[in-house]
C-alpha cells in the first residue's frame, strides 16, 4: 500500500515551507495511507490491552516517511498538522467499519453503572462527532483545528500552541469551548 517514496514527502514539506499552497493537499493522502496501515497493525497487535496512541502512530509514520537528513523542525510541525487530519479520517473510518460489523446494532449507554462511563471518559460516537466537527469548523476554524490535533492527533496543548503559534492558555480555552459546543451538539441531537 505504501506507494509513496520518502523523498517525495520531504520534497512536499519543503515546498510547503516555501509557500506552496497545494502542499497540504498533496501530502494528505500519503500520510493517510501510512497511518491507516500502521493503525491496522497496531489494533491487531494491541487488542489485548486496548491502547492505540495517535502520537506514537504519527511519530512512527513520520520516521518512516520523512527523510531525516533533509527535515527541519518546521517540517515536523507541518507534518503533525496534516497527520492529525489524516488520523481523523483513519479513525472515523474504523468507527464506520465497526458499526457495519455490528449490523447497525448500536450499544446503548449503560445504566447499571454509568458512573464509570462518566467518570473515566465520555466517549463520543466518532461518526457523529466527525459530522458535528464539520459544522463547527465552519463557524470556528481555529478551534476546530485544535480539536483535530488534540483529539484525533493526540497532541498536547503545548505542542498545539507551538503549531498554531499562540499561548497554551488560549489552546486550553479553545479546547474547552470546542468540547462543550460539540458535547451540546451530540447530546441534543441524540434523540
Amino acid at each position, binding site marked *: 500500500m505504501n506507494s509513496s517514496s520518502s523523498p517525495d514527502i520531504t520534497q512536499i514539506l519543503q515546498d510547503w515551507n516555501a509557500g506552496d499552497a497545494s502542499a497540504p493537499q498533496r501530502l494528505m493522502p500519503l500520510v493517510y495511507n501510512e497511518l491507516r496501515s500502521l493503525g491496522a497493525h497496531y489494533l491487531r497487535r*494491541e487488542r489485548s490491552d486496548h491502547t492505540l496512541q495517535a502520537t506514537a502512530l504519527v511519530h512512527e509514520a513520520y520516521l518512516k516517511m520523512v527523510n531525516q537528513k533533509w527535515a527541519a523542525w518546521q517540517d515536523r510541525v507541518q507534518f503533525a498538522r496534516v497527520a492529525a487530519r489524516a488520523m481523523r479520517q483513519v479513525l472515523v473510518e474504523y468507527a464506520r467499519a*465497526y458499526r457495519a460489523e455490528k449490523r447497525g446494532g448500536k*450499544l446503548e449507554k449503560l445504566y447499571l*453503572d454509568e458512573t*464509570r462511563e*462518566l467518570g473515566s471518559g*465520555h466517549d463520543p460516537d466518532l461518526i457523529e462527532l466527525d459530522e458535528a466537527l464539520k459544522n463547527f469548523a465552519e463557524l470556528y476554524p481555529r478551534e476546530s483545528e485544535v480539536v483535530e490535533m488534540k483529539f484525533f492527533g*493526540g497532541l498536547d496543548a503545548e505542542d498545539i500552541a507551538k503549531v498554531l503559534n499562540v499561548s497554551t492558555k488560549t489552546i486550553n480555552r479553545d479546547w474547552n469551548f470546542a468540547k462543550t459546543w460539540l458535547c451540546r451538539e451530540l447530546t441534543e441531537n441524540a434523540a
Partner: protein
Amino acid sequence: MPREGHAELVAELFKSAVELAPEHRATFLDEQCGSNRKLRAELESLFRAEDRAGQFMERPAADVVARTFSREGAFGAGQVVDGYEIVSLIGKGGMGEVYLAQDRRVRRQVALKLVRGGIDRETMARRFQREQELLAGLNHPNIAQLYDTGVTEDGIPYFVMEHVEGTRLDQFVEQRALGLNERLVLFRKLCAAVAYAHQNLVIHRDIKPGNIRVTPAGEPKLLDFGIAKLFDEMAADPAEQTVTMDRMLTPDYASPEQVRGERITTSTDVYSLGVVLYELLTGTKPHRLTSRRPEEITRTITEQAPPRPSSTAGPNARSLRGDLDNIVLMAMRKEPERRYRSTGQFAEDIDRYLEGRPVIARKDTFAYRAGKFIKRNKVAVAAAVLVFLSLAGGIIVASYEARRAQRRFDEVRRLANSLMFEIHDSVQDLQGSTPTRRLIVERALQYLDSLSQDGGTDSSLQLELATAYEKVGDIQGNPYTANLGDTEGALASYRKANAIRAGLSKGGAATMEARLQLARNYRAIGDIMELKGDVAECLKNYRNSLAIIEQLAALHPQEMAVQTELARAYETLGDGLSRTDEHGERLRAYQQTVSIRQALIQQTPDDLRQERGAAVAYMKVAGVAGVEKSEAVANMKRAISIFEKLTAADPQNARARRDLGYAHYQFGRILAAADDHAGALASRQLALQFRREIAAQDARNQQARFDLATAYGELAESYARVNAPRDALEHARQSLELLNDLTASDPANAVYRRNLGLCYERLARPLGQLAEDEGTPPSERLRLWQEARGWYQKALELFADLRDRGALMPSDAGQIENFRAQVAAADRAIAKLAPE
C-alpha cells in the same frame, strides 16, 4: 444561519464566563446579553452542556477506537443462562454488562445485569436470596420490577429486571423541553415511588438520573432499587473495595453520610432526590466536583453549601426564587435529621407548591447555623464576625490587579450582599446584637460604595447600595426595630438611599419591586420626621409613600406583597395623623388597614405576619380619639388574643413579646382614657413586666429602654389615679432615670424630650397628693409641694422649648397652659403652708 459576528461573540463570552463561579454567571449574562435573547439562549445551552462535558472527548480518539474493538460481552446472542435467552448486549461498563434477554418461562423481555464482583458463589447466593425477597416484593408502577437474581456457572452474580424502554430522566426533560410544572409533576411521581419503597423497608441508596427512565408515555421508572446495598456489602470485604470505588466515581448524588461511610437511612434517598430535583430545575448539578481525590469530594459534599437553584444560570432561575429554592435545599441539607422527615413529606411540599399553598420548607443558609451558634456563645460570634470582616477586607486589597478586576468586583459584591442579608438577618432577631449589626452593615456599605466609585454603574448595584444605606439607617435609628438611637445619622442614610431610588424610578421604567422600595424609603424618612417632631414633613413623606403604593395596588390587585404594603401605608398615615386633630381621617385610614388585612388573612390563613398586621390594626382603631369605649375594648381584646397566640408560637421572638407588651400598654391607655383606672392599672402592670424583660436582654437597645421608660411613666400615672402616690412616685422615678439617659444620648429626639416632660408631671402629681395626704406630717407638706412645683416648672419650660422649636404636637398644645396652672396651684399651696 448564525452570522459570523454572533458566533464570534458566543465563543468570546463563553470563554470569559467559564472562568466565573457558576452563581455569577446569571449576572454576567444579564450584563453582557442585554436584550439579545438569542445570544443568551445559546450561552445558557452551552453552560448546561459544559456540565455534561466533563470528561467528554478527553480520551483520545485512537484510544476510543481501540476500546470499541475490544467491546465484547461474556455472553453471545442465543446463549441461555438459567432459562434466560440472551438477545443482545445493550450496555457495558466497568462493573459488568447488561443484556436484553428473553425469559423463556414467561415469554417476556427482561434486562439481565451481570455483575463482575468476583465474590465467592455461596456468599453471593445467600445475600441475593435474602435481598431478593425484599426487592421482589416491591410492586409499583414507577419502580422497575426485580424478577430474579442468580449466579452464573462461572460464579458471576446477575439480576433480572423489568426491561424499561425509555429515556434517561435528564435527557427526557431536555428533549421534550418540559416546563417547570411538568418537571415537578414528573418528579412528584418519583417521590411517591420512593416513599412506597421506604414503607416496604427498602432504601434505594443510588438515586440519580441514570437510574431513572421515562417511558414514551411519560411515566418515570426507577431502576436498580436496593441493588446498591448488595454492592456495598460486597465492598465490605477489603478485597472488593474497587466495587465501591467504581460506584462512587461520580458521587454527585451521594449524601454526606454516604461519602463519610456512615449509616444510610431513608433520608439518604431524600437527599439524592433533592439533587435530582436540583438538576431537573436548573439543568446543572449542585456541586462542581472537579477533583477526583476522595478527600476533596468528601469535603465538597459534606461541607460546601450548594448555590441556591435560583442563582444558577438556567432559564427558570427567576421562578425558583423562594419556595423552590427552599424545597430543594431543605431536601439537600447536610444533616439527615434536618431534611424532610420522609419522602412523603417532600412530595407533599411539591404538591403544596403546585397548588400555590405555602410550603413547609424554610430558608436555611446561614441563619440556622449562625442562630444555633450565637445562642451558645455571643462573644465568640462577635469575634468570628470580626475575623470574617478582616478577611473580607483582604480580598479587596489582595486582588487589585486589573486582570482580576471583574472577579474581584463580583466577589466583593457577593460578600457585601451576604453581609447585608444572610449574616445581618441571621443575628437580627437575636437579643443583644445591635452593635454587631451596625458593624456588619456599615462594612457592607463601604464595600458597595467602593464598588460604585470604581465605576459599577449598573442599576442593580445602585439598588444594592440604596438597600445598604437603608439598613444602616435602620440600625442607626429606625424606631420600629432595635436601634442605636442616632436619629440624625438615620435620616442622612435614608436620604442617600432616597436619592438613588428616586433617580432610578424616573421615567416609569422601574420594576414593581423598585417602586415598592422607594415607597418604603419615603415611609422610613417619615418615621424619622415623626421622631424629630416635624409633623408636616412626616405626613408629606407618608402621603408620598401611600400614593406610590396605591398606584401599584391598582396595577397589581392580586399581588399579595403590594396589598400588604397598601395596608401598611394606610396604617402609617394613620399613625402620622395621630399628631394632628384629624381623627376622622385617621380612623378611616386604620379601618382601611383592617379590611385589607382581613382579606389577606382569608387568602393565606397560615401567614402569621398578616395576623400580626391585623392585630396591630385592631389596636390602632381602638386607640383613635372619639371611638366608642365598647368598640375600643372589643378591638383591643381581639388584638391581645392574636398577640398571645403569636408569642406562644415563638417564645424566643423578641418582637412578638414586644408586641404583646405594647398591646397591654395600649389597652391600659384606652381604659385610662375611659376612666377605668383599676383596669388600666392591671394592664399597665402586665405591660411593664414585658418591657422590663426585653430591655434587660439588650442594654444598648434604645428603643427597649424608651418603651420601658414609658411603661414606668404610665403605670405611675395609673397609681396616682387610684390614689397610690407612693407607688406612683417610685415608678415615675424609674421612668425619669431612663429618660434622662436617653435624652442625653440623643438630644435631637423630640419624642424622648416630650416624654421627659410628661415624666416631670408624673413626679409632681403624686408629690402633691402626698402633700395633701392626711397622714403626712405638716412639716413634710411644704417640702413636698416645693418639690412638686419644681417638677411642674421644669415640665412647663420643656414644653415651651418644644413649642419654640416647632416640635410641639398639636395634641400637646394645651399642656403649656396646664403646667402653668399647676405651677400656680403649687404656689398657692406653698403660700398657705409657708410660715409668715
